[in-house]
């Protein structure tokens, strides 16, 4: 079996992606020493390399645009190369936060109220008036983030209207459209989902307790700065609600193989959907591998199974 792990790319999450790729490739090599597992960056030479040395299966672990927005997966589908993870179409829906939120909301999943706007709206209508309307509609505090992208890049929590313009500029630095979302106070958890022999299974929720208010880039990738609880400190009902939400999202959005859903649990028992990742981080500090470890499932074991399924079925 020849497996190609794609990581890196040109997004701001390049470094995270390279680390994810390295970790998955290493786990796979240990699990299947007879397989040929290679890691490759994504650049203009990729298609030529794929043509010369066509892999049996690809593991796309690019984070951020191109990797998660479905574009690269579209190319792989066109080339008819099996890959693990969600299809191009499903990835496109999941990667766009306001679209994913709306789709799951229609199906009855709770998600914080939000508004998404491009920079041009503020330019054409006047930022002050638009932001006033947003604050009046959502109330404070508000979470501001780019509609596409991960690792909390460009994300901030705004407590006063005066902080909002600066937060908008921070979000627009990472994308053309910004999402303003009502801040929901509660327990921040992440639930990883994977597929095995036709079943869709949810792992135990991982609870995230960052040093500061925000589980930001530094908190995500500096070991020691965030405290994780796996399983999360939840009641049985809350734990089941969290897993049910992640399973619902995975199925509703038509995701495949693996995903990770981030959510907030409020004291009234509601699980609030924030976003879902089709290429979950696999670094040393990432949530998906922590959940697997708690369930005593090897990252290499799971990945090898998904590869074998993809090769057989796609």
């Amino acid at each position, binding site marked *: 079996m020849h497996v190609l792990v794609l990581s890196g790319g*040109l*997004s*701001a*999450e*390049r*470094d*995270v992606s*390279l680390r994810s790729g390295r970790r998955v490739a290493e786990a796979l090599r240990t699990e299947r020493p007879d397989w040929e597992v290679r890691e490759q960056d994504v*650049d203009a030479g990729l298609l030529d390399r794929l043509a010369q040395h066509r892999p049996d299966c690809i593991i796309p672990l690019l984070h951020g645009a191109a990797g998660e927005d479905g574009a690269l997966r579209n190319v792989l589908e066109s080339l008819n190369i099996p890959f693990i993870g969600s299809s191009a179409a499903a990835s496109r829906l999941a990667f766009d936060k306001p679209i994913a939120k709306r789709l799951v909301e229609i199906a009855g999943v709770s998600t914080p109220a939000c508004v998404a706007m491009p*920079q041009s709206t*503020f*330019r054409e209508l006047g*930022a*002050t008036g638009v932001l006033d309307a947003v604050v009046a509609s959502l109330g404070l505090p508000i979470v501001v983030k780019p509609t596409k992208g991960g*690792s909390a*890049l*460009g994300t*901030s929590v705004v407590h006063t209207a005066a902080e909002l*313009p*600066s937060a*908008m*500029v*921070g979000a*627009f*630095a*990472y994308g053309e459209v910004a999402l303003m979302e009502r801040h929901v106070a509660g327990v921040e958890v992440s639930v990883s989902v994977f597929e095995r022999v036709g079943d869709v299974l949810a792992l135990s929720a991982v*609870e995230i*307790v960052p040093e500061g208010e925000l589980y930001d*880039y*530094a908190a*995500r*990738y*500096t*070991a*020691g*700065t*965030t*405290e*994780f*609880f*796996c399983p999360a*400190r939840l009641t049985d009902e809350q734990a089941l609600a969290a897993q049910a939400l992640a399973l619902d999202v995975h199925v509703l959005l038509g995701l495949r193989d693996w995903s990770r859903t981030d959510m907030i649990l409020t004291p009234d028992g509601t699980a609030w959907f924030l976003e879902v990742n089709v290429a979950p981080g696999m670094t*040393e*500090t990432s949530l998906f591998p*922590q959940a697997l470890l708690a369930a005593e499932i090897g990252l290499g074991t799971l990945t090898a199974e998904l590869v074998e399924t993809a090769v057989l079925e796609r």
Partner: protein
Amino acid sequence: MSGSRLDPWVDSYASRAHAMRASEIRALFAVASRPEVVSLAGGMPFVQALPIDMLLETAQRVLRERGAQALQYGSGQGDVTLREQILQVIGEVGVTAHPDDIIVTTGSQMALDLVTRVFCDPGDVVLVESPSYVGALGVFRAYECDVVHVAMDDEGLVPSALDEAIVAVRAAGKRAKLIYTIPNFHNPAGITQGQARRAELLAIAQREGIAILEDDPYGLLGFEGEPPRAIRANDPDGVIYLGSFSKTIASGLRVGWAVAPHGVREKLVLANEAAVLCPSNYAQLTISEYLATQPWREQIKTFQEVYRERRDALLESLQALMPEGTTWTIPAGGFYSWLTLPHGLDATAMLPRAVASLVAYVPGTGFYVDGQGRQNLRLSYCYPEPDRIREGVRRLAGVIESELELAETFGTTHSRGAFTGSSVPAPDLR
């Protein structure tokens, strides 16, 4: 019930390690290493201008003829022949010394570390230019020094500001141990101290009894006239002079040096032995052989021409393309120009947009310990070819235009938090 922090040693680290964190800025620099990105960020010397065949031959000769010595431990002070040859190099900037006054180090970065180790207790003050070299700030921080920035003008450190800073430090009950300066083709400011200014600064340092740490990696890379005379040339006892082969031969060999007064040098040798036992013998002998057998002065002229052409490409395109309200320094040598953005723009906040537009720079806050420099960025012209520099400036101009539009839309003087120390890339990497 406590959770997992994913690092069992998190409670064992020294307090100075707490600032060593992952950062968005470093994440963006990971993208800047891709060939699609025009990186005006790193200060990587253009080593492709070296005669690689001759270096290969030199390195082979070292191994063939002196292999047993090259591959063995050596003196903590450095190879004596190389120290004699370094005298010729520093002679170009007017420094005279005895080979015993020189200690060879693993790049001049190691010399910075050793000098700080020898001079500074936690809380001691180091006076630095405003802005200052990020790698030096990292060393001073590692030794828990208080870094105090002193204003610069077109001629470098401002003497009256230095006086005021010394008075303020004393009033605060602290002691300034070092005045750290890069007098030639400053990193990152691109400014060169005039000779009169050097004399004024030296007089203040002598009067106050504070050692000057003169960092001169770029002194031989001027584009006009003779290399500026070093401050050390006028006071062998009050100035510790740092030099490097990283820019004049090869940064990968990691060979630099310190020229220091007798007592300081004795301690630096002991500190060097404690840190690394000895600098690499192989690298030293290769440099020594190169200096003995190759036309190294001619090679420096080649580097000067390469960098002058790139400096010109940068300045011409900045002049042609930068939006109104943008200013920059005009370096007479070295690797860098220091750009000031139009009012209200923040170079750190702008970096993600720049990287998405495939151009990278180093935001100005990295060159301060106190959050200054938001409106500034450092542009390096040393590594990309002139056409790439022009393309990079074209992209940067577009990014600044967009950022101006954004600032106008939101009426912001936006800021997203400073980044310092461990947030910035290794100084001489892309």
